[in-house]
Every structure is written in structure tokens, then in C-alpha cells.
């Protein structure tokens, strides 16, 4: 990767343009916008040529790391390979050119994608129905909680405003609950890293809306008391929400619907192979048990008796959660992936992802602290280096240092300082698309980094050494925010 220090604005020169519009279809109208509604001066957009644009963004791309560049052991993010046929399908004009308000009778192909997707996701998860309208995982969580509240409200059960979230949960869980107007109560993990059932019991009561759980949890551990937890929560009148960010190890092996979960979301940009795009667009479908069908958001695809697909508003709907029906282009990609995998290969996904995680864990536990040694699922958490090299007059190497040093060797860093249960958390998730050779190379570099730390932690403190930039000054960035081109010129 080569450092390249330009912004598109640098290339701007008055009078340049980068695109030709079609011929005007009608003579210009001068009276269209009265003076009082007109903008006083042109927006400060760059004026650049097409070549400028192509070179600039190509150069920018070369300062970026992606799944196609190398291994991404990013915990809870499931950075698996993004197949190329999926991109081809999403770009088909017969789908890409369709207006969202086209009459439903003229978009039966689009609706068949929604319907087929709903059925396949139901088959994999054991849920009865899905909405595909949420645009991302956190949006799915929020939608799921809205469904939960809509259900309680539909029964006249208005006092259920409390949601239980484990201390190991993704940050989006409590944040989504707060946006949904729910009060968050934290349940502790026990020494094995699992939800502490005894800590849970006193939290259950008539004000309980539900519990949000991730299973396997963010330590990669299967919550084996789930049956008891489900029974307790249901007995108290609450619903069970499943955070599907960690669904990958269960694909082809375990179905959340069978474990007593009432509502769940999936991240199509994780387990279902669609690209992350540098932070979206994603897709966060929400699945529900049969008794919650009437609470799904609208519009929802339904089948008419004669077989045509139509759009309906469920009777006790949670509401409209996005403009139309979510990120259709992302849904198409995931559909293509499911067809690729099919019934023949679905059972390979979760087990191989789980094998990969356990393999890496086993071969690195001699150099990195493993607080919870039991068998993991798709991911696991180290708590920093066993020997961080600290000594008289020398600070030891931290998890941040290890992460930055990995970048020098062509690997993305694992998720760091999450979950919050350990001070030096280093969370690793390999996914099933990584070969033994890739994992071996990663393991070998992780050992080398551990050896470097033991010898001289300064090598790690100074990392990265081989990236376009060294570590940025985050403090100044936050203290004196420079967040647009105007600010930057004023510097």
C-alpha cells in the first residue's frame, strides 16, 4: 500500500466536467424557480475530469484492505469471502432499474425474491416468518424490539418496558433497546463466560418485555442453559430475542427457532456473504415465531390464493421501518449465495467455521492468555499476551500493539477491547472460507509477534511500520474536529 495524499477537491479547476448529460428533451424554462426560492451561490463541489476521478479513487482504493486483499480475523464480524457471481446478479438491469412504487403486479420477480428469501431464512433458522425491510444489523435489532413491544401492546400489556441484556452483548443491543424506549437491565456473566441464571432470576417480573441474547455469545461460547433461560423468561411473560450477528457457527447445525427464541435478526453482510462495503450497505432481516406474524413491519410480501404475490400490512404491525423494503440489492446477493450453497452444502458452513476457530485457538494459547479454555464456536477471546515484555523501565505490549503489528504482515487486526469482560480482549473469528494454509500463516505471525514482544515491546509500540500511515493522533481529531473540506482549508 502506497501513501497518497490527495482529496478530490485538489484536482478542481473551474470549467472542468466529468460527465455528459443526454440532449435536452424540451426547451429550457426560465420561470421555473422564482428568485426567492433560488440558491444564492453554487455549492462548492469539485470541477474535475473523468480521468481525474478514475485515478483519484483508484489511488484511494490502494490504501484500503479488504477481504479480497487478505485474511480478516475480525471477531463478531464474520468477514467471509464475498462471491463475485452475487455482484453480477445484483447488477442485472431487470432488478436494478425497478422503481419501488411500481405496481406489485409488475414486479412479481422482485417479490419472488422476497418470498424465496423469507422461506430459505426460515428453513435455516427455524423461525416462521421474516421481514427483509431492515437495512442493517442494528436496524434489525431495533425492528425486532419494535415487534416485541407491538406484541405486548396488542395484548393490552402496556407495562412491559424492561429488557435484559447480558454484559457480554454487542453495544448495539443496549443502544437499540434505548432507541425503542426500553429500559436496559444488565445480567452478569458467570465464571464460565455464560449468562448467570441465578443473577437473571431476580430481574424477571411483570415489567419484563424480553431478553436479548447472542448464542453463541461474544466469547464464542454456546449458552447451554438456554432451555432454562427460555422457560424462565417465557414464564415471566417476556419474549426471547436472538442477536444473529453470531449465527455463522449455527448454520447447518442448530436453529434458533428450536431453542425457544421468538424474534431474531440476521446480518446478511456477515453470515450470508454479502460485502461489507466499508461500513454498509448491509441488510438485517428479522425472523419471528408464528404467533408474531401479525406484528411484522409493513409492507410484507404475501401469497394470494391464486399464487400471485402481494404486499400487505399485518393487522398489529410494528410499523414502517424503512423507506420501502430495505436494501433489495443486498438481499439479491444473499439469495444468490444461498442458491450456491443449497441443501447440499449448508451443513458445511457452521462446522468448518467452528473448526477453524478452535484450530487457531489451540495453536495460539501457548502465547496468548486464554481466560476461557472450553470449546468455542465461530470465535474466541484472548486476554492479551502471556509475556508482554514488560520490565523495569519498559511498558509491556498491549492488545492494541499486537493489532497494529499484525497490519505489517498483511493481516487485518482482530476485534480488540471487546467484549468488555477482559481488559486486553483480542477477539478472533476466522470463518469457513479461510484455508488451513492461511490460518497457519496467521498463527505463525502471531507467534512471531509474541516473540517480538518478549524480546523488545518497543517493536510493537512503534507498529505499524509498513502501512501508508503510522498511528493517527485520535486525541487531536476529537478535540479539534476537522470534518470537512472547509475546515481543512482553514487549518
Amino acid at each position, binding site marked *: 500500500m502506497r501513501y497518497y495524499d490527495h482529496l478530490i477537491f485538489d484536482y478542481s479547476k473551474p470549467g472542468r466536467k466529468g460527465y455528459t448529460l443526454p440532449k435536452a428533451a424540451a426547451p429550457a424554462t426560465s420561470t421555473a424557480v422564482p428568485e426567492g426560492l433560488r440558491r444564492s451561490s453554487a455549492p462548492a463541489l469539485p470541477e*474535475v475530469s473523468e480521468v481525474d*476521478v478514475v485515478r483519484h*479513487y483508484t489511488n484511494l482504493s490502494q490504501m484500503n484492505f479488504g477481504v479480497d486483499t487478505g485474511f480478516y480475523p475480525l471477531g463478531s464480524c464474520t468477514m467471509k469471502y464475498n462471491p463475485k457471481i452475487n455482484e453480477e446478479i445484483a447488477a442485472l438491469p431487470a432488478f436494478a432499474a425497478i422503481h419501488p412504487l411500481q405496481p406489485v403486479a409488475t414486479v412479481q420477480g*422482485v417479490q419472488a425474491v422476497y418470498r424465496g428469501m423469507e422461506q430459505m431464512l426460515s428453513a435455516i433458522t427455524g423461525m416462521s416468518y421474516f421481514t427483509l425491510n431492515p437495512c442493517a444489523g442494528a436496524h434489525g435489532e431495533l425492528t425486532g424490539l419494535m415487534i416485541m413491544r407491538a406484541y405486548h401492546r396488542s395484548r393490552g400489556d402496556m407495562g412491559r418496558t424492561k429488557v435484559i441484556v447480558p454484559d457480554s452483548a454487542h453495544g448495539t443491543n443496549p443502544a437499540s433497546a434505548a432507541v425503542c424506549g426500553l429500559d436496559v437491565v444488565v445480567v452478569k456473566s458467570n465464571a464460565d463466560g455464560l449468562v448467570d441464571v441465578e443473577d437473571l432470576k431476580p430481574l424477571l417480573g411483570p415489567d419484563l418485555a424480553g431478553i436479548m441474547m447472542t448464542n453463541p455469545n461474544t466469547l464464542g461460547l454456546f449458552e447451554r442453559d438456554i432451555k432454562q433461560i427460555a422457560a424462565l423468561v417465557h414464564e415471566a411473560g417476556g419474549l426471547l430475542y436472538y442477536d444473529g450477528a453470531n449465527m455463522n457457527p449455527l448454520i447447518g447445525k442448530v436453529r434458533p427457532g*428450536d431453542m425457544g427464541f421468538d424474534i431474531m435478526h440476521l446480518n446478511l453482510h456477515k453470515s450470508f456473504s454479502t460485502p461489507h462495503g466499508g461500513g*454498509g450497505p448491509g441488510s438485517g432481516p428479522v425472523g419471528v415465531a408464528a404467533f408474531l406474524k401479525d406484528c411484522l413491519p409493513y409492507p410484507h410480501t404475501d401469497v394470494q390464493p391464486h399464487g400471485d404475490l402481494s404486499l400487505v400490512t399485518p393487522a398489529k404491525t410494528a410499523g414502517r421501518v424503512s423507506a420501502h423494503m430495505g436494501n433489495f440489492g443486498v438481499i439479491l446477493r444473499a439469495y444468490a449465495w444461498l442458491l*450456491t450453497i443449497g441443501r447440499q452444502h449448508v451443513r458445511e458452513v457452521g462446522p468448518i467455521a467452528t473448526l477453524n476457530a478452535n484450530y487457531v485457538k489451540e495453536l495460539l494459547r501457548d502465547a496468548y492468555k486464554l481466560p476461557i479454555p472450553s470449546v468455542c464456536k465461530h470465535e474466541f477471546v484472548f486476554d492479551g499476551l502471556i509475556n508482554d515484555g514488560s520490565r523495569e523501565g519498559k511498558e509491556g505490549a498491549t492488545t492494541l500493539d499486537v493489532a497494529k503489528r499484525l497490519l505489517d504482515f498483511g493481516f487485518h*487486526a482482530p476485534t480488540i477491547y471487546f467484549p468488555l469482560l477482559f481488559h486486553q480482549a483480542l477477539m478472533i473469528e476466522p470463518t469457513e472460507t479461510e484455508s488451513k494454509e492461511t490460518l497457519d500463516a496467521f498463527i505463525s505471525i502471531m507467534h512471531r509477534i509474541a516473540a517480538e514482544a518478549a524480546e523488545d515491546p518497543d517493536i510493537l509500540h512503534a507498529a505499524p511500520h509498513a502501512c501508508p500511515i503510522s498511528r*493517527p493522533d485520535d486525541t487531536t481529531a476529537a478535540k479539534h474536529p476537522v470534518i470537512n473540506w472547509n475546515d481543512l482549508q482553514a487549518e
Partner: protein
Amino acid sequence: MHPYIPHTPDDIRKMLDTVGMKSLDDLYADVPQEYIYKGDYDLPDAMSEDEIRRFFEDLATRNVKMTCFAGQGWYDHCTPSVIPYLTQRSEFLTAYTPYQPEISQGTLRYIFEFQSMVCALTGLEVSNASMYDGPTAAAEAVRMAVASTRKKDVVLIASTLLPQVKEVVRTYASYSGTVIEEIAEAEGQTSFEALAAALASGRVAGVMVPNVNRYGIIEDHTGFADAVHAAGALFIEYCDPSTLAVLKSPAEWGADVAVGDGQSLGIPLCYGGPTLGFMACKKDYLRKLPGRIVGATTDRDGKRCFVLTLQAREQHIRRDKATSNICSNQSLMALWVTIYLSLLGPKGLVDVNERSSASAHYLCDQLLATGRFTPVSDKPFLKEFALDYKGDAHALHKALADKGILAGVVIGDHRICFAVTEKRTREEIDCLIKAIKKAAL
């Protein structure tokens, strides 16, 4: 194994040996047996690439290809071929959120450019890295208004906003205890008198109005900001960003916050998504802004670089105290829009508006000349306008759909909203007019 999974049987055996297990099933020994799914997965047979291609081509035949005169917030503008070409570069496409800035400067720089361009269009000082879509951005703006004002629980929204915007705003608000009241319209645009009356309650935290409304009318917000600010509320403009090349900016109207959907900036319709939501505000509200923000700084060697900043607002740090739950947003679509605005430039974006507007006015005049329509309003419009039809609007719409023409969007039994962009040719417009003349009244 499927080709996406590179393991040979020998690899699997060796790896199982390493972890001290005999079979893949052993990896799930901690899962209660009753939860191991033993049934058949009800999925289709696995397909090859070519079969997948045929499958979707076959599905596609069940969609009717139509010439688009529909708008209502989603417009069929031209897309330069450079955009899909560049956004498909796998360094952009397959990257994660730029949490490791040393190997993510590409993503961070384009988000910084995106923020700069949103600020340029809206005239406001601060923008985030994108939201899901326009309606959810509007819902977040409502939350921001309530969070920025003390003990106020009412937000006023214009009845002239797009229905999807109003419905998403109402959905979000219904769970957070915020009361949404609609401001009545007069002659097709938000009534200042109705606004002033509603503000008198003293409970209003924010007011949201569209710059171009659901009838395509360019709204006149003279006096709105002063009235809203005098009542201690935030003034929010919901905008079509493409039109901001020619129309008064949210900052010029005195808005504190601007939101909208970026679809009109060259993003294909794609049945409504992915597009992106944008959100800009005055600097005073920077720390209330939801979502990611990229800022400039320097690295240890003094090189200019970019990072995600002000993260103390976000869910992964603040959990239930965060300004929003948003995490993944629509980053790649922010790149899409940034490239679009770079290619078009200020002049090109004005041309898009002028050509679309000229064509829309031509169509409007021709439709009125048929004697079958009457105007809904005499207020100025750009690319979209509403007309009342003397016959059954649904029947007319259906008749034209059968001819492959998407004749606007029916918004009442006798009312249709038509949109025309620079992409529509004279022949296509004349074909629509001819088909309407031929249709049974």
C-alpha cells in the same frame, strides 16, 4: 466441500487432530443434543454459476420493464458508468468499517469527501458518514431534536412530507414517547399559520418540513426558522439533495438540521435500496449527531490522515446512552454519491435540474392541454408535479402500465404525481402523452 470452503478431507482430519477431536460433530458437544438439527434443510439444490444466472434471468422475466415517470422521492436519473466501475473495486467493496485507520485511508478519505459535499449542498457545517435512507434519517433527526431540547415531547412534521417519511418517523416516535403532530397544508404547501399555531403549545422540540414536497412543489419557508427558533425548537429541512444545486439551501432557510435520501444523486432505483440517508447540522449540535463521523488529523510522523472521530457518541462506546444505535450504515453508497457529485460538479448538477425541470414543465403543459387534467396548485415545481385527473386515476395508471409506461404515482383516486428526469427522451415523453390521449376516460 463447496468451492467457497477450501478444506480438503486431509486438512479437516489434521485440524481435528490438533484440537483433539474425532469428528466435526464433537465441536458441538456443548450444545444440548435436542438442539442439534437433524432434519432436512428445506433449501433448493445447490446451483452452479450458470444455473444461478439462468434462475435470476427467469425471475427477471416476471418483472415488467417500464419507462419511468414515477418519483415520490425515488427518481430515475442518469448514472455515469464510472461509478459502478469504481465502487466495485474490491478494496472498497470488501473492506470492513475503517476501525484500523492505517489500512483504511481509502474509505476514510471518501467519507471525508462525502461529508464535505453534503456540507456544500446543505450549507451546514457538519455531516455524518450516512444513514440507512431518507426516512430513517428523518426519524433520527426527530430523536436529535428531542435530545437537544429540554422537557419537550412534540415534534411537528409537515403533512406535505412523503408518506414513507411520515410513516417511519411515526413508527420510531411511537416507541420513544415522542408525540408527532402534522402541520396542515394550504394550497399544496406547509401552512405558516398552522405552524405558528402549533408552536404556541410550548412543547415543541422540533419542526420538519420538505424543501420539495410530495406534490413536487418547491416550498417557501420564509419566516419559518425565526418562528421555530423563537419557540425554542430545532428547524429540520427534509431535502432532495439533487435539487439543492438550484434551490435555497437548508442553511439559507435557517435550518439547524438537514436530512434526506441520496438516491437522486445517481443511485439506481433498485426497488428502493440500497440508497443512503444523509444528515447535516450546525456545529452546535455536533455531539448530538448520530452515526459515524470522519475527521482529519496527523499520524506520528506528521502525515495528514483521517480517522473515525467523536466516537464517544456511538453505541460501541456508550451502549444505551449513545445518540443512536446505528452501526453499519451505507458507506459504499456514500462513495457512489461522492463520485457522482465529483463527475457532475456544480454546473452538471444545475444542468440535471434544468433539463429535468424543462421536460417536466413540457409534460405538464401537454397534459393540461389534453383537457383531461387540472392543476393541483399553481406553485412552482422542478421535476415533479401533481395533477387531478377527470377520470379514474387508478384505471389510467393501469392502462398505461399495460403499455410498459409507469405513468407517475397515483396519490388519490383522481390525483397523479408525475416526475420527469433528464434521462427521459422527447420520444418517451410524447409516447406517454399519446398513450394518455388514447386511454378511455
